[in-house]
């Protein structure tokens, strides 16, 4: 039903992407005209929205999160109409970076932004966005960076965990002709003219809370109610949901909400375990999701979940969001001095990926991911695991000493032995009895579950 366009056609000119993308069928998008067919299947539509591409799996429209490595882990990008929830790290150092990458990606692609914060004025947040790395300059600098970084390491072969040498690294270099997902230089600021040329709306809670915006009675905290009303006004007035007959919008609205759930928003879930407003946040998320599902928008929310006292609320919030990514930085924890993690700044956990329009989702096979903030880039890599390497090491040991270890090891880890090469079992200088015991032992292990 949903036609999938090839991704090569996305790599075109900057301004208007010359790509055919088919949107997920949202009922409010059906054009009420002579062309509209009676059913919801409207066939492939020629929609050209900059900065989006259809998903390979189900033709859904995706936008980039601003980090190409994260896009790859999420199955291509963030689907339009969904919520990306970032669980903040403990000292809130790295989650604002992801927030800013998302907004910067919106400015570079010409999307409309809606920035909501209770702590910082949105104008200030926009001033601090990272500068995009433009193609011709950045490729040279990136190659230089990678070369310096990789040369000393690549010569060292992995002696112990030789199998892991074959694992691909997660990071990808910038493709010069890609228009989906850009690279940003965290040390430089976004040029002022780009910010001024963009269309953005800010919601700063201290300013809006005293305004007399007409608000429908609702049982949420006043801050959330005002924010919801604001978002709904923007979506309706700028035509992102297709219901406004005057406005024909062909752009994406990127919504960014910072520190949702913190006491600055008037919510007390971070202060008390059973406060009076324990349902405010979940109701807000539900109504927000309803707004997003019927409009051309994508939302990023950062939330200090480590501060929420009631663990049940975290589970409910996770169920109500589409993609949940958790950041865990090593600052102040004992992992900072752990030699395994010396190259990285923290761990990134992909806690949930949605199954939209599908029974399955694109989960990455690697679950242990670490991130580091290099001079210019925020990279995500798979950790090398240390635990399994000890078993493979024993395989190379001298044959004489092998068998006493063998029985002990079988008790510890069955799986590596199932993958062991057959040369281990061809031992010719052992008596018959031991051979029999061995084969009996192995057969018991192989078929016992």
């Amino acid at each position: 039903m949903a036609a999938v366009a090839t991704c090569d056609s996305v790599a075109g000119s900057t301004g208007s992407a010359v790509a055919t993308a088919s949107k997920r069928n949202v009922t409010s998008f059906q054009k009420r005209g002579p062309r509209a067919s009676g059913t919801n299947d409207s066939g492939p539509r020629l929609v050209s929205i900059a900065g989006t591409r259809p998903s390979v799996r189900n033709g859904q429209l995706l936008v980039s999160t601003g980090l190409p490595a994260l896009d790859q882990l999420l199955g291509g990008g963030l689907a339009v109409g969904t919520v990306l929830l970032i669980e903040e790290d403990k000292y809130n150092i790295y989650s604002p970076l992801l927030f800013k990458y998302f907004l910067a990606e919106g400015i570079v692609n010409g999307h409309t932004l809606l920035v909501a914060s209770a702590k910082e004025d949105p104008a200030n947040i926009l001033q601090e966005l990272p500068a995009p790395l433009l193609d011709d300059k950045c490729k040279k600098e990136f190659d230089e960076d990678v070369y310096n970084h990789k040369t000393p390491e690549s010569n060292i072969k992995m002696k112990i965990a030789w199998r892991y040498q074959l694992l691909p690294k997660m990071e990808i270099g910038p493709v010069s002709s890609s228009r989906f997902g850009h690279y940003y230089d965290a040390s430089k600021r976004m040029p002022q003219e780009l910010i001024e040329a963009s269309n953005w709306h800010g919601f700063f809670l201290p300013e809006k809370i005293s305004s007399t915006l007409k608000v429908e009675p609702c049982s949420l905290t006043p801050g959330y109610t005002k924010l919801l009303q604001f978002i709904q006004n923007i979506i309706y007035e700028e035509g992102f949901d297709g219901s406004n007959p005057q406005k024909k919008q062909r752009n994406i609205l990127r919504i960014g909400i910072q520190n949702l759930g913190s006491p600055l928003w008037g919510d007390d879930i971070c202060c008390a375990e059973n406060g009076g407003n324990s349902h405010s946040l979940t109701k807000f998320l539900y109504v927000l999701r309803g707004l997003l599902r019927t409009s051309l928008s994508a939302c990023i929310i950062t939330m200090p979940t480590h501060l929420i006292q009631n663990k049940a609320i975290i589970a409910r919030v996770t169920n109500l969001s589409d993609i949940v990514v958790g950041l865990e930085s090593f600052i102040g924890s004992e992992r900072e001095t752990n030699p395994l993690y010396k190259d990285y700044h923290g761990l990134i956990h992909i806690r949930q990926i949605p199954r939209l329009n599908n029974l399955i989702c694109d989960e990455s096979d690697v679950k242990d991911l670490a991130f580091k903030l290099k001079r210019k880039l925020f990279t995500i890599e798979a950790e090398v695991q240390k635990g399994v390497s000890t078993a493979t090491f024993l395989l190379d040991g001298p044959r004489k000493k092998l068998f006493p270890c063998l029985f002990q090891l079988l008790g510890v880890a069955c799986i590596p032995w199932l993958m062991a090469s057959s040369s281990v079992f061809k031992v010719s200088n052992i008596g018959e009895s031991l051979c029999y015991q061995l084969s009996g032992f192995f057969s018991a292990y192989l078929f016992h579950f």
Partner: protein
Amino acid sequence: MFVELNNLLNTTPDRAEQGKLTLLCDAKTDGSFLVHHFLSFYLKANCKVCFVALIQSFSHYSIVGQKLGVSLTMARERGQLVFLEGLKSAVDVVFQAQKEPQPLQFLREANAGNLKPLFEFVREALKPVDSGEARWTYPVLLVDDLSVLLSLGMGAVAVLDFIHYCRATVCWELKGNMVVLVHDSGDAEDEENDILLNGLSHQSHLILRAEGLATGFCRDVHGQLRILWRRPSQSTAQRDQSFTYQYKIQDKSVSFFAKGMSPAVL
């Protein structure tokens, strides 16, 4: 509808039991494939279905339904399917004052009310129409999922009351079936959710529990399904039957196998 799951449950669309409450629950994994299965199963069995979809939009179920061989849009047009799209209804309720009571009216109220408007909606949707010949075999109520109602401010007791009223109407009076999905929060200490889950487990005839593997993520085995048949009304000395299978979800079907017998391992 997954043919392998039908074989495991020993049913077909033609000869399914009536008057039963089926509880779907998922722990540490996504059990929504079971909802898609039952939706397509009952549509193929020519039942009148009322689907209270609180968590995803209509197009999501419609697209997956097409992979499983049913067309939700056609079913809705000919009156076989009554679909309540929770997300859209919530936006309407919150942003505009409506004149008639809406099914999700409780979103406007400050303190936890009850789910009476939602029950009225269900009863209205499934009441038998006296139009001569009976077009549909029996009514079915599907709810996806009940844990969302707890997140929206309803108490566990209010939700249990709602299920009780629905069971009295749908299962006993109209001799239909009910299928509800509840998330199991596991160690997240969600007391309200535990009350709801335990209460429903005692009332249901069939419990399908999708769990993630205890050893963690695996590419070839997506989880484990526990099937438990119960007879809640009879206090018998018979033990309830329980089976456990592991499964792998594919693009259009789900394959089930005994524990440890995944084709990837053998």
